[in-house]
């Protein structure tokens, strides 16, 4: 399977995603430049973490107008797999590929720390192989997920909340919610399930050198889903 990792100006986790895909999991990966208007031969697009356009104005607001994004939207609409991690998630909401918005953290500070994620729906292409919980660090200042009540109702009703912040023991818990996200939401998918956005960084725990390595299950799941469908 081949992953295409978008490099926006200011992306800084592009190499980290590349590392997990290529060096930990042994799959193909390439970088997609933001000025590119098209791409081909990619099976999954990663919008990586970082500070695209400095995160000035609003995180992801300027990046979503990059030339590459039209192609990403087309790719997503045709069923291609797209995952946005951290800044990538923000870009996806700005681009309208996922509902809601990411607000400033409740305590107005940047937070970098491990989080435990409860896999709230294990039947998505992104989670089929995931254990009940995975560990993935967060590193963000605007990670507080917000959506209006209707949207939230739909997300919950359709099983589109994929990850929630949980205690180390794996229980959903308000104290474990680092940023004030509504319903402890850490990650969601679109209706069709081919687009995932998540604030925590599974690629930062893809390797047992860095933690328990459980972040890699997100990537393994999508590889599995892709290969099963091929």
């Amino acid at each position, binding site marked *: 399977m081949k992953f295409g990792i978008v490099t926006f*100006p*200011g992306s*800084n*986790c592009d*190499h*980290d995603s590349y*590392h*997990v895909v290529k060096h930990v999991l042994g799959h193909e990966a390439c970088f997609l430049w933001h000025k590119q208007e098209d791409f081909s031969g990619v099976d999954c697009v990663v919008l990586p*973490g*970082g*500070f695209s*356009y*400095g*995160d*000035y104005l609003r995180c992801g607001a300027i990046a979503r107008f990059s030339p590459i994004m039209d192609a990403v939207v087309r790719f997503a609409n045709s069923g291609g797999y797209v995952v946005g991690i951290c800044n990538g998630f923000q870009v996806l909401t700005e681009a309208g590929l996922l509902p809601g918005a990411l607000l400033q953290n409740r*305590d107005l*500070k*940047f*937070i*970098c*720390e*491990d*989080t*435990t994620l409860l896999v709230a729906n294990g039947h998505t292409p992104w989670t089929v192989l995931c254990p009940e919980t995975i560990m993935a*660090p967060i*590193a963000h*200042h605007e990670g507080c997920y917000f959506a209006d009540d209707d949207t939230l109702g739909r997300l919950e009703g359709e099983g589109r909340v994929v990850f929630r912040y949980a*205690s*180390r023991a794996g229980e959903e818990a308000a*104290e*474990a919610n*680092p940023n004030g996200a509504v319903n402890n939401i850490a990650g969601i998918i679109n209706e069709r399930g081919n687009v995932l956005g998540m604030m925590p*960084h599974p*690629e*930062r725990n*893809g*390797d047992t*050198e*860095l*933690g328990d390595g459980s972040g890699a299950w997100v990537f393994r799941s999508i590889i599995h889903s892709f290969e099963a469908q091929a």
Partner: protein
Amino acid sequence: MTDRLRVPPVSPRPGDPQVDDAAVREHGLTTDEFARVCDSLGRAPTWTELGVFSVMWSEHCSYKTSRKFLKQFPTEGPRVLQGPGENAGVVDVGDGLGICFKMESHNHPSFIEPYQGAATGVGGILRDVFTMNARPIALLNSLRFGSPDHPKTRHLVDGVVAGIAGYGNCIGVPTVAGEVAFHPCYDGNNLVNAMAVGTVSADRIFRGIAAGVGNPVLYVGARTGRDGIHGATMASDSFEEGREGPRPTVQVGDPYTEKLLLEACMELLQKDAVVAIQDMGAAGLTSSSVEMAGRGGTGLLLHVDRVPRRESGMTPYECLLSESQERMLIVAARGREDVVEEVFSKWDLEAVVVGEVTDDGLWTVVENDRTVASIPVGALTDDAPVYDRPRQEPADLAQRHETPDLPAHGDCNEVLLRLLASPNIADKRWVYRQYDHMVRVGTLVKPGAADAAVIGLPGTSKAIAVCVDGNSVHVKMDPFEGAQGVIAEACRNVACTGAEPLGATDCLNFGNPERPEVMWEFERAVAGLAEGLRQVEVPIVSGNVSFYNETGSQSIHPTPTVGIVGLIEDRAHAVGLGLPESGQLVLLGSPRPVLGATAYARCIHDVEQGMPPRVQWDDERALLRTLRAGVARGLIRAAHDVSEGGLAVALAEMALAGGRTREVGSGLGCSVQLPAYPEAEARELLLFGETHGCAWVVVDEEDASDLLALSQELGCPARVAGSVGGDELCVADAHGTPVVQLPIERVRDAWEHGFSKAVGVPAPPPRP
């Protein structure tokens, strides 16, 4: 002086102010210095030239006071690929790889505007590293603030930490380690020292040496505004209360632009287009161009009118002295300008030819074909004034040395809890949680999890361990002994993870050097650092001096901080300080504790007096060897050196970080017995006294005898003192009488909340 060059006359630029006595004074030049300027030019300087001399001869740029002393540092060794004198130093870690690093102060700007001052400090030190063609992989910082209850402290802490975070997080370089300490001597002068570390191909190190007459000089990066004009002069002056000098426009950092600049430079330096490259730091365009020409022994011509500007109406003086951030100067190979321009335009940055390398030894600036400055390069560099300022032993030195008479407190549980809650020792999670310390997926041992951070080197099985250290109370009490102690502690900190220290960088933060007592402290501290470095055979490869940290007549404590880079051959063996689930606790080294000048004396008795602990270098080296060998052989599972707060605090820190190995855990109990100690009734001395040469380590029970044998072989005393387990922290004296016995929960509570309580910031939620 070098051979006298003939300097062409330069007529005053219409509209520029007069160069008169008042102007000379305002520029911080003494009468003698001004005479020297006239002498080197063979005429009076123009307004522009006056500004240029003023910044280039400022303490900050010229090291005129410190130069003489810095020569004592060992700077050579088989590992040194680049010593002091370049933008940053480089040590060899094998596999064709070098580690490039440097530390720099941004004290004055951070006091005026904490967020931007700290942010631009990070930006500046990163540029120093990536101009060498090194990919930055880690940031560190050493911070000093005034008393936690001083009305300004909280605002400064908040701003400085957020500024460091704001820059490092955005540019995507992990901030992996550092230190934060409080002392009333910093009430009017906080310290912000930032260190950057990068990796570079040993055969692709770039330097800032202008060469090749006719080669074009390119300006790249952000545009020039009126930011921080006279920043270097300001950094060479003390704060005077109530004085409203010429307030420079505060420099604002733009980490996003710097990220583009970083990537553009990394890409460009792969191509054969660049002869020399240097960042524009203090004194911007002036110092970068002068220094490149100085190192190359060439001249340089600048067309100042071609400099990209952010504001209209800027004069040559302003353009040359501006300290706008995120800019670099490049000497390209003639005919390869287009390569530079192409790469920079890919990254949406400007690259403009603004001059060329010449052979006349002159630094010449023209504005629309009219010469506005013409100065021999040497006059601004090698021939800048050098001072041998008077030094005098402080009148109160004997008093400082006197051992204080400290009555025993009696309740060691309470003493321990108070020490752990004191802001210098308490948990710094509030700080490092704001730093992205994991980006780049290289941080194997994270902040709080060990005495040094451990970063994997991509493509190898190696890792480096990095730390910064300083103990200004020890240095104040005795600069020579205290400074040696700083080296010992820094080396121990990297050795505790299993690393061999390879090289050091330093930041020498001192008061006003025109005070003979400050100069004496400086001389003794530098001598102490140099002695320590020689004892461990660690060269200094880069560094920085910050004088004039003084407000009113209050100088800061002499505060040398040292950053060390160590090498771990097999990163799988790197260890942290947290207790593993089981094992035996071994004390390596023989404690020689003192109570004066310690955290105990300050926190419990409000006393700051007495000789600091003295380093016994034979013992220290034996300890370093044992730590390294013990970790490399897989015997040592956790290690933590004894420093502030003594044996008891060190043990408590291991317990608190316990439960997980490479990250901070949720706490584990342990119980140990103290060694017998000659001085009877020396309980508090043994528990809380500070000493060099000691570390607690944990071994699996079955490995204990191997570790003891290894220590013996390497000449380091070692003693099994207890074991991991339970949910209490228990310390018994040599007779088995418990002296400390506390539930881990209580210990944790004191330690985890100490910082936020003292500083008055909201406590972070419990550890996940």
